[in-house]
């Protein structure tokens, strides 16, 4: 929409809400779906897997967001210390699953838009609004190869809520989500033990246990378990626990002392 010239039929000159949106100029012959299909037909499909486990659930005391910290490229582990919970504002966080770069970039953009919203309107952005903003931004690039599966979680004046947003165009409100290659393992643990009226300690323990089980069985997940807790006063970081430590702890609980021995290795 040109901002010069006379408006036709009362169309506003320039948009007061979008004074500076990030938008990429796409080359005219660019056609990612066709490219991906061609690769598939040639017998070398490009798999976009979300190698990670992230989860979030609502309970009586707020929201628990629990994630792993492994980044993989195929079978290669790039990092064991990735921050997969990205704060958007003091009361909103998003999780990272899919392309790490895509998540970081678009979360930053969402953070920018949410801060501008707060400044312009003098009130915090709701979880519904933030997730819708992200979903609409991503929809413009649908089919072009972005890979993001995020859970926007926060506490606004309607209470705690979680929205799952991905690059396919999904935007779903729910009380319990898990995203990533280890999500099925996490769902198993969560669905078994989740109760809305858990205490804070129980909820955090459940969040950690679910991630641990996913990291144990899924090669795409591992490293540390970072856990965030959200109340009406905002989010707080509840600590990072090495999943290996959790392994030995749970093994000891389940099988007794014998399996719980951590091999002591002498390093020359």
């Amino acid at each position, binding site marked *: 929409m040109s901002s010069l010239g*006379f408006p036709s039929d*009362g169309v*506003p*000159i*320039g948009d*007061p809400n979008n004074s500076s949106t990030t938008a990429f100029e796409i080359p005219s012959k660019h056609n990612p779906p066709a490219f991906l299909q061609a690769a598939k037909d040639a017998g070398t499909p490009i798999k976009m897997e979300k190698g990670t486990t992230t989860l979030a659930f609502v309970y009586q005391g707020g929201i628990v967001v629990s994630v792993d910290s492994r980044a993989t490229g195929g079978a290669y582990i790039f990092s064991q210390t990735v921050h997969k919970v990205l704060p958007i504002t003091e009361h909103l966080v998003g999780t990272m699953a899919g392309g790490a770069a895509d998540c970081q970039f678009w979360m930053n953009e969402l953070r920018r838009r949410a801060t501008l919203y707060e400044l312009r*309107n003098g009130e915090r952005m*709701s979880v*519904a*609004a933030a997730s*819708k*903003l992200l979903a*609409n931004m991503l929809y413009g690039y649908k089919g072009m190869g972005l890979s993001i599966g995020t859970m926007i979680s926060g506490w606004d*004046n309607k209470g705690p809520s979680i929205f799952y947003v991905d690059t396919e165009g999904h935007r779903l409100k729910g009380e319990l989500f898990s995203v990533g290659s280890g999500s099925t393992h996490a769902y198993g643990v969560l669905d078994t033990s989740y109760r809305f009226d858990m205490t804070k300690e129980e909820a955090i323990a459940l969040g950690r246990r679910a991630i641990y089980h996913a990291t144990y069985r899924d090669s795409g997940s591992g490293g540390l378990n970072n856990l965030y807790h959200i109340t009406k006063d905002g989010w707080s970081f509840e600590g990072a626990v090495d999943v290996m430590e959790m392994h030995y702890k749970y093994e000891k609980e389940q099988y007794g002392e014998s399996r719980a021995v951590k091999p002591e290795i002498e390093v020359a």
Partner: protein
Amino acid sequence: MSYDRAITVFSPDGHLFQVEYAQEAVKKGSTAVGVRGKNVVVLGVEKKAVAKLQEDRTVRKICQLDDHVLMAFAGLTADARVLIKQARVECQSHKLTVEDPVTLEYITRYIASLKQRYTQSNGRRPFGISCLITGFDYDKTPHLYQTDPSGTYHEWKANAIGRNAKTVREFLEKNYSPDNVATEELTVKLAIKALLEVVQSGGKNLEVAVMKEGSGLQMLDVSEIEKIVQVVEKEKEEEAASKKKESKAESK
């Protein structure tokens, strides 16, 4: 040298004449009054006499921008039509992107920004209207805002725009109090009383809209307005009579 040709030119003493002339156009429009009550908002407008053959219904000065937002204006009706159309779209667009109805402050700011943009671009003239925008936010609080052709906006407890607005505003300043707007009846009565200061008496010369929290726009019937007008007239007479008695007693 005349400085009222192009909108974008300041005069040497800092005036934007086109904006001031637009405000003059507003002063020629029929009066509108808005009163914010405790849990009700009221808009009243002077209904201009229509020509004999004209259909009464086609003159609408109070319009709904959304389920919970009302607007009355004074000035150029055609300009108002453009603004109302864009404001209505913005109300829905906001609902779509933010999943919440607009707050009164937001939609007033939108309309005011639109007006301001037309005071700062080539080849355009400002909108020749002032608006009274009122309604309820989703936290159930009532608000009343006023915008003018320059693009400024302020929140008011009660205000008037258009012809003789000053007289009406002075009346409201003297007579507005939290007690006077504690109920729906009192608020409506105050709005009508204020309008009657400058409008010829009679229910058919007034258009009154009422909005309560949670319910939509309710236009009062001519008969309902007539009833209130009669009560107001009676009270005025009684007051005048008692004042006469007092002055007689004093002069003796």
